[in-house]
């Protein structure tokens, strides 16, 4: 199969992206975000998990959480390129919500086949979810987990669980005698304890989740296969989020460089400011193009999707790092304060940069595909 020239990004996708951008611009300003998440500046604070549930419910009603769900399970079955367009806009707004987690769970559950259908239907009906598949080390190897399963009972701890306190369901990977299985667990189930992490990023919450004799139903007994199938979509969507956030960083910094004057010129006059901002733009565009290429491959060129998604997330991680670095530096002293909105995106991007594999990790995987594993 080959990819359509327009990334499969058709009229419907364009409409969705535009309306999401407008919806967020109208309803969720950066000023509002700052008031909501940055009230406590103490370095020792425990993340507050502040978010706008009412606005989130409107998004659910707009159908955003069921875009990726196959029509057979009550969703809209939109292509990943369209979903990526929406996520790019959420990244631009840095809107705290469990959309990415729910989409991630959707792609994994879809890969589980029939056994995942009931859970998908729950998401289609408005339930939210997140992945609980990472161990204490933060290993991105899909076979690694901090949770064990013995005769349908889960014990252990999942780490680095994103937006855990915002969701209704967890998609947990656990080791069995036969390999790795996936389980669909309610966050309020007996034996589940959510321990919030104190994190840098103010726009997300994160937790480790403790399982003590939790009764659970498996949605897949071949967890590695289901996760491997879904991971390219998960990397691509995070890269889309990074793209949107980086564009916010670029535009905010360009605006500042146009107004702030030093040495009788706006900052943007000086090439030591101008040229790095152009390089930020170049990285954003590289990343964005690779995101839609990977998204399109997910639906039309499955043989090469892993390769393309590694490229997208490696590129996105570089982009997140550089856009963040230049956004703070080009603002000078004000960029170093809690009061300037720049720090919200800086922290979100540093979080995204490392999540689900940093640039070097993705490049190492890419090399294994393109060159072959080293002797």
């Amino acid at each position: 199969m080959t990819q359509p020239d327009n990334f499969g990004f058709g009229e419907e996708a364009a409409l969705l992206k535009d309306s999401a951008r407008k919806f967020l611009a109208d309803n969720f300003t950066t000023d509002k975000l700052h008031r909501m998440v940055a009230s406590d500046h103490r370095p020792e604070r425990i993340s507050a998990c502040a978010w706008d549930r009412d606005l989130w419910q409107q998004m659910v009603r707009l159908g955003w959480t069921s875009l990726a769900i196959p029509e057979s399970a009550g969703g809209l079955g939109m292509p990943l390129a369209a979903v990526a367009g929406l996520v790019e806009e959420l990244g631009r707004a840095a809107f705290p919500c469990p959309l990415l987690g729910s989409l991630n769970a959707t792609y994994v559950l879809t890969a589980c086949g029939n056994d995942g259908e009931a859970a998908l239907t729950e998401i289609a009906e408005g339930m939210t979810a997140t992945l609980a598949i990472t161990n204490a080390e933060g290993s991105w190897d899909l076979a690694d987990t901090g949770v064990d399963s013995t005769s349908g009972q889960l014990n252990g701890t999942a780490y680095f669980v994103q937006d855990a306190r915002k969701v209704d369901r967890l998609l947990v990977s656990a080791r069995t005698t036969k390999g790795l299985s996936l389980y669909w667990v309610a966050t309020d189930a007996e034996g589940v304890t959510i321990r919030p992490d104190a994190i840098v990023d103010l726009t997300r919450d994160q937790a480790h989740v403790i399982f003590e004799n939790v009764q659970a139903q498996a949605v897949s007994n071949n967890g590695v296969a289901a996760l491997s199938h879904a991971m390219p979509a998960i990397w691509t969507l995070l890269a889309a989020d990074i793209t949107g956030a980086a564009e916010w960083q670029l535009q905010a910094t360009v605006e500042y460089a146009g107004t702030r004057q030093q040495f009788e010129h706006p900052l943007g006059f000086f090439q030591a400011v101008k040229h790095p901002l152009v390089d930020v733009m170049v990285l954003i565009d590289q990343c964005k193009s690779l995101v839609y290429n990977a998204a399109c491959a997910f639906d039309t060129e499955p043989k090469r999707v892993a390769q393309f998604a590694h490229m997208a997330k490696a590129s996105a991680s570089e982009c997140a790092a550089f856009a963040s670095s230049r956004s703070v530096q080009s603002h000078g002293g004000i960029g170093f304060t809690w009061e300037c909105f720049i720090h919200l995106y800086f922290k979100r991007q540093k979080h995204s940069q490392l999540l689900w594999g940093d640039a070097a990790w993705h490049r190492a995987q890419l090399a294994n595909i393109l060159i072959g594993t080293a002797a």
Partner: protein
Amino acid sequence: MSESARQDSPEQAEFRDYCRQWLASNKPKEPSVRLPLSPLEIMTEEQLSYLQGWQKSAYDAGLVGCDYPVAVGGGGRTDCQRVANDEMIAARTPFMPNVIGLGMAAPTVFHHAQEALKERLLPRLFSGQEIWCQGFSEPGAGSDLASVQTFAERKGDRWVINGHKVWTSLAHFADWMILLVRTDRSHKYDGLSYFVVPIRAALGQGVTVQPLIKITGETGFNEVIFENLEVDDGYRLDELGKGWQVAMTTLLHERGAGELQTPRSGGMKSKATHSSNTANLIELARCTSRNGKPAADDPLIRDRIMQLVIREAGLGQNQRRARVSALQDHPARLLLQNKLLASEIAQAIGATAMEVEGASASLYLGDDNAPAGGQWPMAYMNSYGMTIAAGTSEVQRNILGERVLGLAKSK
């Protein structure tokens, strides 16, 4: 089916089939001489005539100038040059020698010349029978192009030209030159005018072409001296004093951001050619031994190569995305990055290739032991031509920062 084939209009689809069939039986034979990296390093008549033969046959077959009107020697088609380019590149044909003609002179002449002049000049430009060069840069005017001093003085309905152009690629083979001159010393921009000049006909009679030797040891560019050269006013493009605006048409196309698609072929794979891309770099790393193992097994080299693979793929996908308006916020943002990215990526690939070769990267074309015939060090050196010519990378970053991001204009 190729990526773009799916989106073809009926005209494009039919034309694509035609190109494919024609190319299947008309691909040129292996050259008997080493071909340079690009048309800008053509040094000998043998290289030129091989490449000219190819361009002529491609033009006669209708694969060059497809989107120009029939009256000026074009194919009269709509958005079909892109199709021909896809197919020529897929068929790995040689590149076309008349690059400056096709990429810069043709769109400029087309947009700014009188009808009769277009009809006279364009057919032989497209066929490659007449080679073109570009007389813009001068010893004192490079990045600050509008400060050119070569002067054209009016004499009835003729002009007398005096001055000194440098870095003039292909001038040693050129029949024609697009020439930016000053016609008024009191205005920097509005004092410029634009001519097409038959330079070959005037060699030794007002025009002197002297080769300049490049960093690689190759020739390919020249200095061109004008001493009281007389040209007819009919060779002026657009109005007097509008030279800067005309030059903008040229530069936009030179940087790959113009509206007329430049005919492009290339990618020929043979002993005679070299191309700085990551596929060749990976091949090199596989074949190069390091501590008894392939260099391609070294984790640092792998990481370096993957960084380049990603940049190269990103540029390819930028070009694809540039045709999807719903995925762009600014119409020129991607197009204006093309030249900057292509040249800097090629440079980084060349640099990495030399590191992969290690000590053997010291060996040049004349050494039988040089890996890949010594082409990588040559390609690396040549890559600076691309980051300097057509507006340096620094100038490109100024343009992007000012036109796309709206930052204050730098001096």
